[in-house]
């Protein structure tokens, strides 16, 4: 668990680069430098990649839905959905446990289903479709927020550790390793139960928890970039000219590492959505009556056999959204790193 471990950064999807830490071994550093291509170049490359654009489209749709839902919830007090649709959290809108339109099985005949509730109603008689729509809001919000927390915290930690080196680096990086060694999900469960035993703000805590847990990933990424940037001439020059350290980090180091961080952040949003769905499923994330996909899956479990549709739709929503982020992340990575272009 020291700097000599032969891996430096973990990617959510497994496409981790293997690199021996820059400070211990210059070995693969040349490739590192080669891979560091500017952000604008990355974005131009991206325009040619249809799969990445598909990812971007999925993200745009999800984000648009999330924004509409947020405006409705926060500013309009559910006026929009209540007027044109149903209230996502309060019910009942119809009989409980209605099947989706046209669906039947040995427990439910199709005559019960209705076009008014195309995806059926849940155990409280709430419309499933409107709850799925609102679930997007929670997924996108937690995904982005937790990633921003991880990104900002991790970037600062990594930049400071990499820039100053020495004992500051040692302490911060050992801390990151310890944080790393405690399983992600378990760490967040413990944090949630410690900070919010009544689960009043469990979702918020989970979001922050996932953010904190993702900090080491960003910290390691930035740190290894800093090691290579630190030696660059213009940084030396800035230092010689008496520019403050803080300014150098903000002005030179961080912008220089933007492309790989963007890749990691995009993938991290997808991962965060998955993890928070898992936490909500276990009861440590979104709480009833909030409309979250993980929470809906939690409630679907006791009714798994008679009402299989309860579990199918939220899962597909998660899959669809996360695929969007992974597609864009892959596209960004390929664009940023010409070596592994397809």
């Amino acid at each position: 668990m020291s700097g000599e471990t032969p891996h430096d950064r973990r990617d959510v999807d497994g496409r981790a680069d293997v690199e021996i830490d820059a400070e211990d071994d210059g070995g693969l550093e040349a490739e590192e430098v080669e891979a560091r291509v500017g952000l604008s170049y990355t974005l131009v490359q991206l325009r040619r990649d249809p799969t990445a654009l598909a990812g971007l489209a999925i993200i745009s749709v999800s984000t648009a839905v999330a924004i509409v839902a947020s405006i409705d919830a926060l500013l309009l007090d559910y006026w929009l959905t209540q007027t044109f649709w149903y209230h996502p959290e309060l019910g009942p809108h119809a009989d409980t446990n209605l099947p989706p339109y046209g669906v039947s099985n040995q427990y439910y005949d199709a005559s019960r289903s209705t076009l008014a509730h195309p995806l059926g109603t849940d155990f409280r008689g709430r419309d499933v479709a409107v709850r799925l729509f609102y679930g997007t809001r929670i997924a996108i919000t937690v995904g982005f927020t937790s990633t921003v927390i991880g990104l900002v915290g991790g970037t600062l930690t990594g930049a400071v550790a990499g820039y100053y080196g020495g004992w500051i680096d040692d302490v911060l990086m050992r801390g990151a390793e310890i944080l790393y060694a405690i399983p992600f999900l378990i760490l967040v469960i413990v944090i949630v139960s410690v900070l919010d035993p009544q689960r009043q703000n469990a979702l918020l805590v989970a979001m922050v928890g996932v953010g904190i847990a993702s900090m080491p990933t960003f910290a390691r990424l930035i740190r290894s970039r800093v090691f290579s940037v630190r030696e660059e001439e213009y940084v030396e020059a800035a230092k010689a000219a008496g520019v403050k350290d803080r300014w150098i980090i903000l002005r030179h180091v961080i912008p220089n590492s933007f492309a790989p961080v963007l890749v990691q952040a995009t993938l991290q949003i997808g991962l965060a959505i998955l993890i928070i769905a898992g936490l909500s499923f276990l009861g440590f994330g979104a709480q009833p009556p909030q409309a979250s996909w993980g929470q809906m899956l939690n409630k679907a479990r006791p009714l798994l056999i008679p009402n299989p549709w309860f579990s199918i739709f939220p899962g597909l929503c998660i899959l669809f959204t996360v695929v969007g982020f992974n597609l864009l992340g892959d596209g960004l990575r390929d664009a940023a790193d010409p070596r592994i272009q397809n």
Partner: protein
Amino acid sequence: MGLFRYATRRLLQAIPVLLGIATITFFLSNAVPGDPIDIMLGPSPAQEQKAAIRAKYGLDRPLWLRYITYLGDVSPIWLSTVDGFPYVAPEFGVDLGRSIHFGAPVTEKIKERLPVTMLLMGSAFTFALVTAVPLGVISAYRRNQPTDHVSRVVALVGVSTPSFWIGLELIIVFSFYLGWLPSNSLVMPWNLPPAADQAGLLSVEFWRIAASHQVPVLQHLILPTISLGTLQMAAITRIERSAMLEQLSQDYVQLARAYGVRDRKILRKHAFRPAQLPVITIVGLNLTTAFGGAVLTETVFSINGMGTLILTGVLNIDYPLIMGTTLVFGLIFVLGVILTDISYAYVDPRVSYGDQEA
């Protein structure tokens, strides 16, 4: 030899990390606002009773003293004061305390649950590696051909699907609609039916029973394995593919081609071995993701493993149980990473020989 020294060094480096994990879990658990004694004894316990139990679990002592004692308890070797006398004696063995919820030693619960989780994880990683490695290699070799497209879509969906949801859907399809496979708990391969004991270890009958016992073991294992292993499978497929692609463009692979080595051998030998380095790394690091997945999978399939144990601990604010299980998870992770580092060093001579030059 280089490899042995490397392994020793890595093991020693793990000690401070484990110490850190122990510290974090201790302070996190003790920051839990709820009072476990209240949970244990119900709404209005008698004060004396409460105090007695506090004393029994050592909760009446100051935090720092409890921390020191805790460290001593969890370390295999420690120096402790004997009965408050000012001399110290070595203390051996690991003591994770007594679970408040179960009223039993935490080590006992862990001994009971750990093999279950290890079986599940081992099975999931075996499934992941056995499917992902060939898939990634073929995908890279047939780059941008239909096989590659299919395997990439599978991998993409795999990394984007919540593992617990896969579990739920598998139960619906295979346990309910098809009725092929059981949907709850695991059967341990070594928990043989009583008839086996009666037959005796040396009898043919014993081995017949033991062998037929493995059928329900496998049946129970299949769905949880797919549920937990899919994410790993997808992740490994992706990294295997990109690592193989990178290797296939290397000069030394081109050189092998220029010297008349067959494509198949290039794939199997020249490109394959160096391409396993990132795969080894990801398997080690993905252990943590898999632990999280294990909590979810065990919940979905009602398996009594470490994951459900830690959930029990958290839900009942059972400090010793939370601390013990987290510590064991951390320990396994650290050991797993060291093991992968050693395999890495075994594959890549540049690591074990230390004198890096390349």
